Structure formats: structure tokens, C-alpha cells
């Protein structure tokens, strides 16, 4: 498989997953806000700013919007073109990558992704969002889930498939860890918090719902919501498909399906790092993690995921970057077969 194609498949599925996760985070938090009473501006800011932080673009946000309110955060994370991680930007980039590998994906996937793209850039999208943010986010989530379903149902399981799996699971592991990290300021730096208030309990259940984990959590722990149990569920649970451990295990599996190297060995850095992280997650307890500090742990975890991503690029995809020459390149691509009027050498 062409390295560039592997790269595009990886990013296509990563961006789809990203758009879905941002929709999840926003949806749940907008709903959560409805449960607050008599909130002052500080409380609101404390609620919304971490959500911007969890997508990692705080600087740009402050520059564009200054204050964190429900509408400014939503605008920034949904429609902002300058924010490369907004829902619209993510879907645009997913589609751009899909266009580059149109021959490797199926018509069903392409048409759905294209439809989603045409929807989010249409005026209708904004109207839907104003009418009912929740329905709007459901639309994004449903479309992403449909794309995942279509991939499962229509894509041939060749090397490219495993690159899409890697993209999806690395993004999901990262976003789950960031969603979980949203409330870190309310936690002690080290150790497990003892009791939590009712509002805090609501916030922690919002975190679970962001990850579609509320039902699964309840079936294991009942309705009692405690940060320790929530964190254990989202980081260490073996069977929940959005937990960090589950995602990293899938990611590791996909890496090995590409190279054919067994679990106990490695043939490149990506496999080495992924294998190590799987073991770490298998042989850790949540109390150890809280002892280390949940926030610091998640921070380190995100760095590890990044390293796996970089190692993957080094191994399979390494290409000289053309981004610096971007505009010039686009111009030449367009110029082909266009034959712009050549300006005459003489003056008239």
C-alpha cells in the first residue's frame, strides 16, 4: 500500500472520530448546564473553559473569543474554521483525506462522508444547531457511527483497514482521556477524593455520558457515581469499547496485523511503545493512578499516545513535509490542464 494512502486512511478515520467526540463533549455539557441553577459567570467559566482545554486549543480560543460561555465555546468547537479541531474542520479534513483515497474506500463510505460534509457547511446546519443543539450533535454522532458501521460492513480487511483502525483507536483513547480530565481541578492533586457533592456527581455522570458509557457503567456499579469508579471504568476497563485500555489493545492488535509480528515481540518503535502501554494498563490499579495523580497520569498517557502516532509515521508513512510549500503546490496542481491565459510578452 502507498505510504501516502496509509497516511490518508489513518487521518480520515481519526478526523471522523474527532468530530464525533467533540460532538459528544459539547452535547453532554450543554445538557448538563441546564441542571445548574443560579450560576454566576465564574462558575460558568469554570464549567466551559476546561472543555476548550480538553481539545487543546485554548490559546486560539482566547484570541478569538476571550470569554468562555456556552455559545462562544460551542461556536469555536463546532463551526470555527480557524480551529483545525472544530467539528466542521475535522469533517472537512476527513473528507479531504477520503478524496485522496477514493479508490481505497467504498462508495457507501464516500457518499455518507460527503453528505455529512455538505450538511455541516450548509446554512441548514446552523439553523439546526440553533433550533436544537442536541439534535444537531446527534446528527453528527449518528453519521460518524454510521461511517464506522459502513467501514465494518463494506471495507476489505487489508492493510488499509488496519490503518483506519489505528487512526480511530488512537483518537478515541486520546479523547476519552481528555474527557475524563475535564474535572481535574476539582480533584486533589494526589489520592482519591473522599466525598463529592451532588453537582459534582452530575458532572461525573456527564463525563460518562460523553463517552456513551452511562449504561455500561450503571450495569457494573449501579447508580453510585464516584470519580474513582468513573476513572477506573474509562481508563482500565477491559471490555468497554471507549475505555483507554480497550482502545490501546485494539491499536496494538492493528499494528501487529500490519507487520505480522506476535504480541511478545516488536519490529518497530510503534509496536514497542504500544505493547508497553498495553501491559502498563493491564497491570495497573486505579488507586495507583490516583496516588500518582489522575491529571498527571492522563497527561503522560496523552504523550505516550502521541509518541505511538509519531513512531507509526516514522515506520510506515515517513515523507518529506510539503506543508511549507503548500500554496505553491496547490497552485501547480490547479495549473495542470487549465492553461491560464499566458500574458503576452509585448505591451498593447
Amino acid at each position, binding site marked *: *500500500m502507498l*505510504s501516502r494512502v496509509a497516511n490518508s486512511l489513518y487521518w480520515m478515520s481519526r478526523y471522523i472520530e474527532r468530530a464525533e467526540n467533540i460532538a459528544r463533549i459539547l452535547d453532554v455539557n450543554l445538557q448538563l448546564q441546564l441542571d445548574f441553577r443560579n450560576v454566576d459567570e465564574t462558575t460558568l467559566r469554570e464549567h466551559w473553559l476546561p472543555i476548550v482545554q480538553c481539545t487543546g486549543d485554548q490559546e486560539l480560543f482566547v484570541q478569538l473569543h476571550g470569554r468562555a460561555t456556552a455559545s462562544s465555546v460551542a461556536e469555536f468547537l463546532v463551526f470555527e474554521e480557524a480551529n483545525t479541531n472544530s467539528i466542521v474542520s475535522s469533517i472537512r479534513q476527513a473528507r479531504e483525506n477520503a478524496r485522496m483515497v477514493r479508490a481505497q474506500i467504498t462508495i457507501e463510505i464516500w457518499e455518507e462522508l460527503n453528505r455529512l460534509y455538505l450538511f455541516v457547511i450548509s446554512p441548514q446546519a446552523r439553523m439546526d444547531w440553533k433550533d436544537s443543539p442536541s439534535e444537531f450533535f446527534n446528527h453528527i454522532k449518528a453519521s460518524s457511527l454510521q461511517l464506522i458501521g459502513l467501514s465494518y460492513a463494506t471495507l476489505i480487511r487489508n492493510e488499509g483497514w488496519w490503518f483506519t483502525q489505528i487512526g480511530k483507536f488512537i483518537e478515541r483513547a486520546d479523547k476519552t482521556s481528555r474527557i475524563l480530565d475535564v474535572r481535574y481541578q476539582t480533584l486533589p492533586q494526589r489520592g482519591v477524593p473522599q466525598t463529592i457533592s451532588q453537582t459534582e456527581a452530575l458532572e461525573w455522570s456527564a463525563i460518562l455520558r460523553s463517552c456513551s458509557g452511562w449504561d455500561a457503567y450503571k450495569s457494573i456499579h449501579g447508580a453510585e457515581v464516584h470519580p474513582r469508579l468513573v476513572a477506573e471504568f474509562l481508563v482500565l476497563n477491559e471490555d468497554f469499547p471507549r475505555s483507554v485500555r480497550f482502545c490501546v489493545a485494539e491499536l496494538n492488535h492493528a499494528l501487529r496485523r500490519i507487520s505480522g509480528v506476535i504480541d511478545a515481540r516488536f519490529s518497530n518503535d510503534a509496536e514497542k511503545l504500544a505493547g508497553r502501554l498495553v501491559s502498563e494498563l493491564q497491570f495497573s490499579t486505579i488507586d495507583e493512578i490516583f496516588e500518582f495523580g489522575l491529571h498527571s497520569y492522563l497527561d503522560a498517557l496523552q504523550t505516550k499516545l502521541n509518541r505511538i502516532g509519531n513512531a507509526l509515521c516514522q515506520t510506515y508513512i515517513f*515523507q518529506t513535509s510539503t506543508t511549507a510549500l503548500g500554496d505553491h503546490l496547490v497552485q501547480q*496542481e*490547479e495549473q*495542470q490542464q*487549465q492553461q491560464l491565459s*499566458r500574458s503576452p*510578452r*509585448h505591451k498593447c
Partner: protein
Amino acid sequence: MISEEPRALLNGYERDGFFDEMIDASGEVLPHYRKFDALFRSFSADEFQKKERSVSLALLRQGVTFNVYGDSRGTERIFPFDLVPRIIPASEWQFLERGLAQRITALNLFLHDIYHEQRIVKDGVIPAECLLSGKHFRREFVNFSVPKDIYIHVCGTDLIRGDKGEYMVLEDNGRCPSGVSYVLENRRAMKRSFPGMFETIGIRPVDHYPQELLKMLQHIAPPGVADPTIVLLTPGVHNSAYFEHTYLARHMGIEIVEGRDLVVRDSRAFMRTTKGLQPVHVIYRRIDDDFLDPTVFRRDSMLGVPGLAHAYRAGHVSLANSIGTGISDDKVIYAFVPRMIKYYLDQEPIIQNVPTYLASLESDRKYILENLEKLVVKAANESGGYGMLIGPHASKQDLEQFRCHITAEPRNYIAQPTISLSRHPTHVNGHFEGRHVDLRPFIIYGEKISIVPGGLTRVALRKGSLVVNSSQGGGSKDTWVLYGNE
């Protein structure tokens, strides 16, 4: 006016003195349109418009679009599609097929000749200066023998019809002609919209084009390569024909690559894959010569592959189309094609050229400058409707501008009489009006010559306009070649 009366669809339709593809001078539907017309009358205007909307929506959803240049948001548009097909009877198509095959044969002989002995120049049929001054004449490839001696593998020849319905060649596109994906997609859209018609009318299929193209690419593989790796080289996603590139690669089952995916080592071409470098044997390139290899042609090209021309010369990789075919697209060289046909094949041209005046010849130039407001002036090496003056529609200022261009750079301009292109009923705001059309068949030259029945019919959607290019407000129609004559 939208009328609910089905028979009224063509009511009030006027030929306006032009040759019409569907209606004769007395207002009767021509024999090869009769079956279609009978079926078409069963649709109400409402039904028709509904079908039209659903086709546009489907094309947009499938991403059958071209990029609008200079738009940073990457706006894409669909190439407007008109649901009334252009129909060609069997006998007429046989004539066109013979004419097109004759033409591509002569052009390939010409290209071989000018890159080897140059007999045609020595025998005085084409003046040496016309050839040597050609912008796309590649001196670097003189005395190089291309694989299987084929230069133009894929040709898109633009045909028009004059006021008596006579076919003429407007131009040859022997470099990277595009548009064939619309031929295939338009057919798909028509089959979905009018499923019943295809069985009743008897229309020749077009969907074997990708197979024919693949066969040709396999045919030109370097000697000794039993199972060649074939790739399509695209400039990238920002190119207006990108959809077509992916479409063809997908239907041929070959990789679509960009320049950065390829690398040349020891004069062999490879692609970068997740498993290391893999050899490449045949490249269907959709990049112009100029950008193909920065070490030989334009140095600033970022789309090409350094060393590719060298690998090509060494015979380790084949290219379609070959390097250097651009000279046959030169509108000055075009004027000599009828003479080429006589010279190489000793035959009369089956399809005529449009009469052409060369500004580089003194007598012609005089005529051009005196009759500018009656003529169409074209720059010798432009396409896509750029660099063109339509005398009768031009402003005084434009006329003066071109007068000056022609005097300053005569080699770069030719002129032709304004042809009143044939028209075709076309759907405009709920009724039908005549719009000018042309036809671009796609000719594949491999082991044998193969032409998919029909081609791309382009239609100038703006009233009275003669320009059919997608960049200039053109649309397209499905082209039906019938098994019979009715």
C-alpha cells in the same frame, strides 16, 4: 411557462435558423430521435424537473464535481447536466469512427516522423519554422523511440457541426484530455432516471472504457515485464479533474499516485509503500510534460518525479501519453492535419478541419486583420476557452487588443470563420430552448484503436453562447449512439 400538458414540452421550440440535432427545418423530429421523443412525451414537465433535481443532487452527493480555481475554501461545483440526450444514428457514428481513427493514425505517424527523420518538413509539407517554434516541441526527445511507437494513446478530439450539419474537427487534445468520467457518470445518471428507455431504444454501452484504457496501458508495458504495475499519476486533489483521476484509477483497479509517491533509483521508477519501494512499469500520467520531471523540464515543478524522464529514456517505465505530444495540440500544427493525412496515409481526410488562417503567413495575417470582427481568433497553445476572441461578439477594445497581439506575435495566433454550431433542445427554466453543442469522443490507441461509442457532448448553457467549456458556463449531456439508424 411550465405546462402540465406532456406533449407541450417541445411546443414553441424554435430552430432560429441553426442546424438542430433533433428537429428538421419543417419542425419534424428527426428519425433517430423518434423513439426517444415518443417515450419522452409520457413525462410531464413536473416529473421531468423532479428527475433533474434528483440527478443534480446525486451528482453532488457522489462528489462528481470539479474544483473552482482561486477559491481558498475549495468550492466544488457539479458540471451541470442536461437530461435530454444527444443521439447519434449508427451510420453517422461509423463515419465518425473512421474519421477519428484516420486522424489519430496520422497524428501518431506525424509525431514519430518529427521526432525522427522529419520527412514531412524536408518534403516541404509543413514549414520548418512552424514546427521548431512550437512551444510543445520537445527537442530533448528527438531520436528517442517510444514504447510500441505510440505517441498519443488517448486523444480527445473536439467535433462540431456547421449550419448544414457537416461534422468538423475543432481541435485535437493529445496530451491529457479530460472529461471521460462525465461520459460514464452521465450514462449512469440517465439509466437511473429513464430506466425503461434503454431497453426500448437500443443504445450502445459505454462502461467498458476503463477496461479498454487498462488494456492499452498493459500493451505498452516495457518488454519482459509479464505482470506490469500500472499507476495513474495525478497532480493532486486540487486539480479540477481530480475526480476523474480517482474514478479511472478505481475502475481500472490501479493505484493513483502523486509525484511525491514516486521515486527513481538507477533509472527505474518505484512507489513508496508501507512495505518499502515497489517497482512501477507503466504510468498513465495526467500531468503535463512541463511538470513531469524537474530535472529535465520546469525546475520549480513540485508535482513531478526527479529522474522520471531518464527512467523513461532507459525504457524501464512507459508513459501514456508520451512526452512531446503537445505539439500536435498546437493550433498552427492543427491546420496541417489534413495535409498530414494525405502525406502519410495517401487518403482524403474523412472529417474536415475548420478552415484556419495562420497569422504567421503574411497573406493570411492580412486577411485576419481585415476581417477580425467576422472571425474567431485563438491563441495557438491555449485551451479551456481561454485566450480566445469571438469577433462578432467582441467589444471594440477587445478587437484592438487582439489586433495588437496578432501583429506582435503572429506565430501565436490563428483565426477561423465563426461557425454557427449546431444546437440541441436543452432544458431551461421549465421549457426547452436550442443551445449550441459540441462532441468530444475519446480515442484509445493501443494494440488497436478503440473508441467508446459517443463521447462527451458539451452544451453552452448561456443563450447564444458558443463556448462550451465547464469553466465558462458549459454543461453536458449524455450521448447515445444507436445500434440502428432509428
